[in-house]
């Protein structure tokens, strides 16, 4: 599938692609044509991404009571949110989830991608195995979460086999509806976002570099740390951006898998929304957005991914 390759060795040569158009269209029409073609995308993103986010920013300064929200300019939505210990604890908890899930998905994702890229020799087999890894991404997240119930439940597969084997005397309670379950489900849902970009960059590493390193006497481990990992950084960065933003904004996995016993920023917002406290949720949203964008900016500072796009 074409999705596997987001490569661009040509972005720095725009002229190569501009040529046929220049000959086909009168010169004055060309810029117009580009704008017409880009217009639908710009309109949709403007209407359903940009304006909604601006609305959030606006509403975060509004007043509200238990029934409705009022246009106003107040700052207590922010001062209340930032002044509360609960908020800080929830942010800390969300960072904890993010860090753990990021570490696990990176570890698993890298080795899966590495195996596919360097150990599978036929391209067909590579594509088939890659598809096997991506197909679950195209199925329902909620159902994939539900599907952990028969495993982790009180009478689930894990507990009943542990009891039968005599390892534990009574069912383990922490398996389902716990932070353990949240992390497990997130790793289950989000590892694919790591595998795909890392696989992409690994596939583009020139194999002769590895040969050269081997000829120069590098051990397998040295090749990994000095050649492969540095060259895989852009893919790792893209995967990390995906995973970090997904976990930071997650509310449904936390709600379903922790059974209400754990909290995240997204869940806090979802609760405020269900109580119709839209301005408070909006203030939270603005803070979350700033935090997420700062993290993304930090990742982009460390790794230059422009070559990847």
């Amino acid at each position, binding site marked *: 599938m074409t999705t596997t390759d987001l490569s661009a060795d040509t972005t720095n040569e*725009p002229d190569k692609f501009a040529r046929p158009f220049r000959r086909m269209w009168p010169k004055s029409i060309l810029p117009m044509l580009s704008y017409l073609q880009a217009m639908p*995308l710009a309109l949709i993103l403007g209407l359903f991404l940009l304006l909604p986010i601006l*609305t959030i920013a606006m509403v975060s300064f509004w007043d509200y009571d238990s029934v409705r929200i009022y246009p106003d300019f107040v700052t207590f939505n922010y001062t209340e949110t930032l002044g509360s210990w609960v908020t800080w604890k929830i942010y800390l908890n969300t960072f904890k989830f993010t860090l753990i899930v990021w570490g696990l998905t990176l570890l698993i994702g890298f*080795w899966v991608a590495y195996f596919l890229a360097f150990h599978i*020799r036929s391209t067909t087999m590579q594509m088939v195995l890659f598809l096997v890894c991506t197909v679950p991404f195209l199925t329902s997240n909620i159902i*994939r979460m539900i599907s952990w119930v028969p495993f982790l439940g009180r009478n689930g597969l894990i507990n009943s086999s542990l009891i039968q084997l005599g390892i534990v005397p009574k069912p383990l309670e922490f398996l389902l509806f716990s932070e353990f379950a949240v992390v497990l489900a997130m790793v289950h849902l989000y590892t694919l976002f790591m595998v795909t970009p890392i696989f992409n960059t690994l596939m583009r590493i020139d194999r002769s570099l590895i040969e050269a390193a081997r000829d120069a006497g590098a051990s397998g481990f040295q090749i990994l740390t000095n050649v492969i990992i540095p060259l895989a950084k852009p893919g790792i960065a893209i995967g990390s951006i995906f995973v970090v933003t997904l976990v930071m*904004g997650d509310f449904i996995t936390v709600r379903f898998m922790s059974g209400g016993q754990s909290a995240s920023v997204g869940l806090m917002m*979802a609760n405020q929304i269900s109580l119709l406290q*839209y301005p408070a949720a909006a203030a939270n949203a603005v803070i979350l957005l700033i935090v997420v964008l700062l993290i993304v900016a930090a990742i982009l500072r460390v790794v230059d991914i422009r070559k990847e796009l």
Partner: protein
Amino acid sequence: MHSETRSREFYILAFFFTLFVLFLYGPLTTIFILSFQGPSGGLTFPMNGMSLHWFSNLFEQQAVGDFGGSFRRSMILGLMTTVITVVVSLLAGLAFRRKFRGSMLLFYLAISSLVVPSILISLGIGLFFQVLGIRPAWWSSGLGAHLTWTLPFGVLIMFAVFNRFSPVYEEAARDLGANAWQTFRHVLLPMIAPSLIGVGLFGFTLSYDEFARTLMAAGTFNTLPLEIYGMTTNVTTPVLYALGTVTSVFSFLVIIAALTAIIVLGRRRAHVG
């Protein structure tokens, strides 16, 4: 396949990969099996007989909310999202082949559509409609919410396609006297058709399963994932698994159909030359 001996690293990683695949598919397989529970069976093993009881239960309206209606809405919404995603991504891909003022800005906007947490999009669209005094509905605000998720993928795929697309074919067509439309219709379009199916596949499946962005943007009537989520809180029978099985099988069928189409188109192109 190969005569040279595999290294120890290969076997360790192959084992790890197998575990990963089991981890990916194992849970799903269990609910497939458990959805065939007998009428007295519960949410976990053991199986109390085998039956199609829970599947028939699924189609009784009162038992599990509005399965038929929400499925129909999700289908229509998915098809609408697919068509718009394919057309808009293709146009944007064509536009991005040339530099134009604001092209980088638009590209970053598309990327941020992926990066902004879903709950923000959901809340934002919900508030936006509320402030404008428009009632949100699955086919208006819901559609917009889905497009913020599917379009970036579509645009990235088209980006990748056109980055590897050599303009010599178009030049050849032009030299043979084809006009701009003919070049597009008879040269470019057939060549990128498999990728467009890929974009469509992403558009449909991502929309069909989308939950977080739809939550506040769907209005009164639920889409299928919203309906399923509602069920998780009050349904405690294997009918939940039957629903999971039915919708997952549907997803798999869509994926298989799209992949087959991509392979067939690719073969045909290879044949023609």
